[in-house]
C-alpha cells in the first residue's frame, strides 16, 4: 500500500488517543507476598528491569483442560487417591516429572510430556496457580454442595464458562472482557500507541473486548493486504472512498469500518515487521507455535510501533477430551510445554523476560471421575504462569484433596475453585500497571474476595 493511501486510511480510521498524558505508574505490585514462606532460588540471571514495556500473553486452552492430569500428586497416599479415582486415565507414577510441594505439603508433579515446563519451574520462571475458576463469592469447604446461590450460572457449559473466564464476571456484573476493561483504563495514557492494546492471533474473543477498546485480530503469517489493490493501485483511493462512504445498513457500516481498520493496522504492522530482526529462537511448527512466534515477532518491533502495553490472545484447541484422552491430552500438553519454553526463551533473547508474562486459561477444569477413556466438564482447574516476573518454583493457591466426595467436590469430582478468576486477573493486571485503587473498576466483584493480589508476580 502506498504511503499516501496508507496515510489516508490512518487519517480516516485510526483512533486518536489522548496525547500528553503520562503512563500510569507501574512496577511494584508485589503486595501480598510477605507471607510467602518459600522464596524461589532461581539459577538464571535476574531479568532486566522493565523498560517501560509490558505484555501479558493469554493462552486459552479451548475445550476445558484436564488440569488433574497436567499437575498431579507425585507420590504417597495423595497419588494413590488420584490413581484410584482416575482408573485407566491415571498416569504411571514412575513417569511423572517432579515439581515441588503444594500449599498442603503434598509433593506434586507435571505430566510426563511437560519436561520444558518442569525446567522453567525449577529455574523459578514458572508457577502453578491451583484450583482457580469463576466464583460469585468465596465458597467455604463445607458450603460447596449447599450454597446454590454462590454457584455461577450455567456451570459446565463450554461457551458460558469460557465467557465467564474472559469476563471475570460470574456474578453477572459485566458484559465485556477483563483485558478489554483494562485497555479502556490504559489506552488514554499511552500517547505513542497507535495499535489497540489487545492483539489476538486466534480470532475474535471476549477477553479483549472493552467498553471503548476492542482487540484487533492478526494472522500468524504476517501482515495481510488485498491483492486487487496491489495489482490496481488506481483502485486504492476509490476503495478507500467506498469504505468511508456512509452506509445505510448498520451491518454494512460496521463491515466497512472493520475493513478500514483491517487495512490500516495491517499496513502499519507490515512496515514495522519489515524491520524485524531474525528470530533467534525456533518454535514448534504447530498452531500454537505459529501464534507465539508471531507474538514474539511483533514484540520485537515494539519500538517502531510505539507500543507500551500489549495484551495478546493465543489459543490451543482440542482439550474437550471426553474420549481418547490419554493420547490427545499428551499431544496437547507437549505442545503447550514446548511452546511456553520457546516463547520464554524468545522473550529472554529480546531482553524482555521480566516484561512479558504468559498465563493460561481454559473453559473449565474436568471431572476427576472418569467416563471410560475420557473425562467430562468440571469447574475449577490449575493454571500455569510463566515469565521473568513470576515468583516461580513454588505453587500458589490451594490444592484440593483429589478425593471423590471431598470437601470441595460439588459432584462427580467437579471441584469448586478456591481462587476466583477475578483474583487471578487482578494479580496479572496489578503487575501490568493498573493501580490497586482502579482495580474495582476492572473487577467490580473483587471486593468479595480476600486476595486481589495473589503474589505470584513481582
Amino acid at each position, binding site marked *: 500500500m502506498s504511503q499516501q493511501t496508507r496515510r489516508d486510511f490512518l487519517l480516516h480510521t485510526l483512533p486518536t488517543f489522548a496525547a500528553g498524558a503520562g503512563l500510569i505508574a507501574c512496577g511494584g505490585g508485589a503486595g501480598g507476598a510477605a507471607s510467602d514462606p518459600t522464596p524461589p532460588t532461581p539459577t538464571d540471571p535476574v531479568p532486566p528491569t522493565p523498560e517501560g514495556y509490558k505484555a501479558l500473553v493469554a493462552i486459552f486452552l479451548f475445550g476445558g483442560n484436564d488440569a488433574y492430569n497436567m499437575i498431579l500428586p507425585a507420590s504417597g497416599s495423595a497419588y494413590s487417591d488420584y490413581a484410584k479415582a482416575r*482408573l485407566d486415565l491415571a498416569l504411571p507414577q514412575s513417569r511423572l516429572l517432579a515439581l515441588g510441594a503444594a500449599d498442603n505439603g503434598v509433593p506434586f508433579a507435571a505430566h510426563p510430556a511437560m519436561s520444558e515446563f518442569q525446567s522453567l519451574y525449577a529455574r523459578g520462571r514458572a508457577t502453578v496457580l491451583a484450583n482457580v475458576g469463576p466464583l460469585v463469592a468465596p465458597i467455604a469447604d463445607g458450603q460447596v454442595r449447599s450454597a446454590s446461590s454462590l454457584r455461577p450460572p450455567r456451570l459446565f457449559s463450554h461457551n458460558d464458562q469460557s465467557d465467564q473466564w474472559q469476563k471475570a464476571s460470574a456474578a453477572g456484573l459485566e458484559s465485556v472482557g477483563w483485558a478489554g476493561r483494562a485497555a479502556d483504563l490504559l489506552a488514554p495514557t499511552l500517547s505513542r500507541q497507535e495499535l489497540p492494546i489487545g492483539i489476538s492471533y486466534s480470532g475474535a474473543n471476549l477477553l479483549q473486548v472493552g467498553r471503548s477498546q476492542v482487540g484487533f485480530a492478526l494472522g500468524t503469517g504476517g501482515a495481510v493486504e488485498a491483492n486487487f489493490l496491489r495489482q490496481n493501485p488506481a483502485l486504492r483511493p476509490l476503495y478507500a472512498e467506498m469504505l468511508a462512504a456512509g452506509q445505510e445498513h448498520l451491518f454494512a457500516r460496521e*463491515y466497512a469500518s*472493520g475493513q478500514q481498520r483491517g487495512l490500516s493496522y495491517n499496513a502499519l504492522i507490515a512496515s514495522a515487521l519489515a524491520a524485524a530482526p531474525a528470530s533467534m529462537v525456533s518454535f514448534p511448527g504447530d498452531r500454537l507455535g505459529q501464534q507465539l512466534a508471531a507474538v514474539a515477532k511483533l514484540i520485537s518491533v515494539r519500538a517502531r510501533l510505539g507500543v507500551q502495553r500489549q495484551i495478546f490472545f493465543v489459543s490451543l*484447541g482440542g482439550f474437550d477430551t471426553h474420549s481418547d484422552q490419554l493420547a490427545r491430552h499428551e499431544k496437547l500438553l507437549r505442545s503447550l510445554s514446548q511452546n511456553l519454553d520457546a516463547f520464554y526463551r524468545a522473550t529472554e533473547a529480546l531482553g524482555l523476560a521480566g516484561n512479558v508474562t504468559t498465563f493460561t486459561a481454559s473453559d473449565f477444569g474436568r471431572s476427576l471421575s472418569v467416563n471410560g477413556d475420557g473425562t467430562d466438564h468440571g469447574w475449577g482447574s490449575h493454571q500455569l504462569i510463566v515469565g521473568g516476573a513470576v515468583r516461580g518454583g513454588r505453587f500458589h493457591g490451594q490444592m484440593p484433596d483429589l478425593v471423590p466426595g471431598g470437601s470441595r467436590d460439588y459432584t462427580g469430582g467437579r471441584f469448586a475453585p478456591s481462587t476466583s478468576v477475578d483474583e487471578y486477573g487482578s494479580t496479572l493486571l496489578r503487575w501490568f500497571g493498573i493501580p490497586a485503587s482502579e482495580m474495582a473498576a476492572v473487577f467490580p466483584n473483587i471486593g468479595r474476595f480476600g486476595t486481589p493480589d495473589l503474589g505470584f508476580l513481582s
Partner: protein
Amino acid sequence: MRRTVAATTLSTAVASASAATDNSKLLGGTLLDRGASARFLTQTTFGPTRAEIDRVALIGRDLWLLEQLGKTATLHLPRYQALLAQSASATDARYAAWWEIALTAPDQLRQRVAFALSEIFVVSDADTALNDRPMQLTAYYDLLVRNAFGNFRTLLEQIALSPAMGLFLSHLGNDKPDPVSGRRPDENFAREAMQLFSIGLWQLNRDGSPILDAKGEQIPTYDLAVIENYARIYTGWTWAHRTSWGRGSNQADETEAPMKAFPDHHDSDSKVLIDGSVLPAGQTPEQDLKAALDSLFKHANVPPFIARQLIIKLITSNPSPAFIERIARVFENNGLGVRGDLGAVVTAIFLDPEARLGFLSDQTVYGKLKEPLLRLSQLLRAFEARSRSGVYGVGRTQAAYAQAPLGANSVFNFFSPQFQQPGPIKNAGYYSPEFQLQTETQGVLIVDNLGKRIALTTATAGDNDPVLDLGSLVAEAADSAALLDDLNVLMLGGSMSASLRDIASRAIALMPDAGDEASRMKRAQIAVTVIAVSPEYAVQR
C-alpha cells in the same frame, strides 16, 4: 403428501403476506422483477444465476419453491467417491464434491438448507477423530441433505446414530457405568444434544423470548442430573461393523451404517426424563433412545429454538418475535397435524412477510452479514465458474475464508447465534453471528481471495481452479451503465446504492474502452471486483 403439505403452507403464507401489503408483486405470485428474484435466490440458494433469476421471475416464488421441494436430492457420497481419483487427498475430494454440488446442483433449496443444518448439527473435520474420515463426514452431510425437508424427529435420530456424530461427541463406545470403579457414562452428546440440537439452555416462549420466573429471572431447561440420566440412556452404541463391544475401528471396515447397540453395555436401570417421567428398568438401548429423543422432540422449546436457528442462518440475524412465533407454529403443526415437518418450516420461513418485506420496512438492520463461504459461492455461481478438468477445486478455504464445509472449530459452529459485534451493533442490542469469524484481518483476506478468483483466467488457472466466465459481460462492457445495471441485479438483487454505482463507474473508467475484447474484459473484471469487495455485497438483505 409432501406437495400437499407444502402447498397448504404456501397458500397460507401467500394469503397472510398478501394481506400485509397491497403490493403483491413483491410477494409470492408471478411477474417478479429480476432484482427481487435475485434477492429471493440469495436467501434460498448458494447464489442467483441468470437462468434461475429468469425462472423465478417467470413462475413466481411459490411455484419455484414447489418445484424445488420436489427435486431429487443430489447426494454427496457418490460424487465424493467419483472424485477420489482426481483429488490430491480424500479430504480434497470431499471439498470438491461439496463445491460441485453447491455450485451446480439443481436442488439448490435443499442444498442450501442442508448447509444451514450443518451449522446447527455440527460435526467437524477439525476434530482428530474425524479429520481423516472424509467418507464419514460426507455420509453425515448426505444425512442432512436427505432430511432437509423431512421430519425433525427422524433427523434427530439419524444424527444420534450416525458414526460421525458418535465419534465427534464421543457417544460411540459409551459404556454403561461401573459402580465398583466409579466409572460414569460420557456426558458429551447428552449435553450438546440438548443445548445445541434441540431445546437450548433456557425455557422459551413460542416467540423465542425467555420465560421468566417470579423474580424475573430466566429458567434453565435442564440441570446436571438431567444430563447424567441422558448420558446413561445413550450407552451401549458403537460401530455397526464391530462384532464385539469396543470403540476401536479399522477404517477399511467402516461403512456409513448407523451405530449398532450392544445391550450388555447399555445401562438398563431406570432413568428420569426431562419431563420428569420415568423410563422403567430393563428397556433395550433402542427403546431408551426412542423415548429420550421423543422427550426432547415434544419439548415446547424445540419449535422456537429451531425456528430462530434456521431464520438467522437463512434470512436475518434479528428476526422479530412474531416471525419466530409464526414459524414455531408451523413447526408445531404443518397444517395436517404433523409436528416437525422441516419442508413446511423452511417454506414458511422463505415466504414469511418478514422474509419478503422486512428489508423495506427496516433498511438499516434487517438481514445479515453473509457467511464468507456464501460470498464466494454466490460469486462463483453468478459467473458459472468452471475449471479445465471439470473438478471444482475450490480447495481448502480455512485460511482465506475462516470456513470450510463441516470444518468448524467445535460443536459450537463457526460463530455463535448469540454473538454481538462489539461497538454500535452490540450497543444497540443486536445479534450479528457472522461477524464473529470475520475479524478485520479476515475481512482483508476474504476480499483479497475474492479479487484473486475474479482475476483468474483460463491462462493463469490450474487444471482444477474454477474460472469465472465473464464473457457474457464483454458485449455490454463498453457501456458502464448497462454493465452496472446487469451486475446490480445479478450480484446485489437490484439494491446498489447511488454511491457504489458512482464509485464503480469511476473504477470502470480507469480502463477506457478501446473497442476490443481485452479492454472490455478488463472493464468487466474491474466492475465485478469492485462490487464483490463492497460492503453492500457483504450484507444479505
